[in-house]
């Protein structure tokens, strides 16, 4: 475990030293600000999305509405940018052989990298949430709002529900990160794995809207991005949340374990 912790610490340090990390983080933080500013300068609103009508009721609602808009490609792209790159860039730069000829087992190196990629996924979503609440509250105040069931939710409780929602939202996003890691390990090409990961995410969304896919829809990764709605109902609807947990777990574990096996055995040769 000490070995994994050491690798993890350095993986985070490496992320913090790279521009692309900040590009994703910055995007995640600027989107809610643009969103709030745009709604401030015009009178319309995203009335056709859940909670959209209440966007001006409270700053707590802002991140939740932004989540909907970021699900299609915003967060998948930001996630792919790091997860798709984290192994491939080291293969390409030849640094993988540098770190694999020290004393850390390949499994430890992989675990540290995977944890760092998931940490980033969580960090960008939380960063968007915090910035969204602050920006929304500056514009419209920190008030109670109306839940999806039409009942009032106090600002404090709403804040808790908002963070719980972000927590559930991160699960399918972690599935995309795991897929990115797999591609990053197999393809050894950063750009190819980032783009392919994004394509995978878009494909998952696409299947969900095709006619005739109703029966499998609850088990698609894209569907799980809406699972947090369960928290915003009164009483809370746990069915989509529990399903999001186990469905996402499958989408995480299968590619992650495959990537792990490939990483253990793969040849680390020239780029």
């Amino acid at each position, binding site marked *: 475990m000490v*070995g994994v912790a*050491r*690798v993890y*610490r*350095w993986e985070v*340090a*490496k992320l913090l*030293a*790279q521009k692309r990390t900040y590009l994703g983080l910055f995007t995640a933080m600027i989107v809610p600000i643009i969103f709030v500013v745009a709604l401030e300068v015009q009178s319309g609103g995203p009335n056709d999305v859940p909670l959209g009508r209440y966007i001006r009721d409270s700053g707590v609602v802002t991140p939740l509405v932004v989540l909907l808009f970021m699900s299609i490609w915003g967060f998948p792209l930001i996630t792919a940018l790091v997860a798709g790159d984290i192994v491939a860039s080291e293969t390409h*730069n*030849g*640094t993988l*052989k*540098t*770190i*694999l*000829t*020290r*004393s*850390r*087992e*390949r499994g430890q190196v992989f675990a540290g990298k995977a944890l760092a990629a998931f940490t980033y996924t969580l960090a960008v979503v939380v960063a968007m949430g915090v910035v969204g609440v602050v920006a929304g509250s500056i514009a419209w105040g920190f008030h109670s709002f109306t839940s999806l069931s039409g009942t009032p939710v106090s600002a404090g409780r709403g804040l808790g529900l908002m963070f719980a929602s972000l927590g559930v939202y991160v699960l399918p996003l972690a599935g995309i990160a795991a897929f990115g890691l797999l591609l990053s390990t197999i393809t050894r090409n950063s750009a190819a794995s980032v783009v392919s990961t994004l394509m995978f995410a878009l494909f998952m969304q696409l299947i969900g809207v095709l006619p005739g896919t109703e029966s499998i829809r609850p088990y698609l990764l894209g569907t799980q991005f809406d699972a947090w709605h369960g928290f915003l109902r009164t009483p809370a609807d746990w069915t989509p949340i529990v399903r999001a947990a186990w469905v996402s777990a499958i989408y995480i574990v299968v590619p992650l374990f495959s990537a792990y096996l490939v990483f253990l*055995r793969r*040849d*680390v*040769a*020239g780029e």
Partner: protein
Amino acid sequence: MSDGQPVVARGLVKRYGDVVAVAGVDLTVEPGDVFGYLGPNGAGKTTSLRMMLGLIRPTEGSAKLFGRDPLVDGVKALEGVAGFVEGPRFYPYLSGRKNLRLLADYDEPNSSSRIEEVLETVELRDRAKDRVGGYSHGMRQRLGIAAALLREPRLLLLDEPATGLDPAGMRDMRDLIRRLAGDGITIMLSSHLLYEVEELCNRVAIIRKGSIVYEGELGDLLATATTSYRLKTRDPERARTICLNQPGLGNVALGGDEISFSADEDAVALLSLALGHARVAITQLVADTQSLEELFLGMTGGDSSDHDQEEVA
């Protein structure tokens, strides 16, 4: 600490589909050796070093470091071993010192207490705070050695350590390797620079098209070299006749006013007497010892990179 020779490779083969990168490498590096691994570009040097370091899996055969196989024992096989293949690589966006800190944290036991010492050894302390992205090739090579020394290795595996360096850099690198060898570190270095090997190594293996064509003492190899002579006289025609009749001379040939032949020292001494006796004045008598390079070219068939698998690898 484990037992066994620093490097024992037996029947090492690496195939990529139909392409054979390493066709069967057997070699043994003994304690205290500065072992030269020679071969033309693409002969399979880097691929075999990668197998020794556990970076790629051999298709057949095994490589053991101090008795341990990286394939079986994982990174434990690398205890007491350090080095680099195909040039050392670092994170360009981190400083030299930070790169070493990272690698020290990847070592067991943690080697961070040695960072300043190894930076001093490779004379990089002044630039250690700068990003590696701004380093010259020579500085990266030296940082590579520093990173290897962090591990206090008993065996250093260095792939073309002086390649791409300017003449002063090459000399510094050779001095450094000599100093490390003097400290008792066993060194295996691959090279296609023959004078480098001749200057540094006591034992060599020569690889050609993925197979070892010679392994042994460098001195023994050089002893197999034949010596040829070039002779100029005032009367080339008569000198040629004398040479042809002189015992101990072979391959006598006249080209222009110069005669060439092969012989040992005693035969040459007798020849000079015979020429003097016949009143043929010698103006020049020069020995051309076959160099390591000529031996090498002879063994490798003069091919340079028709077997270019390192890029495929």
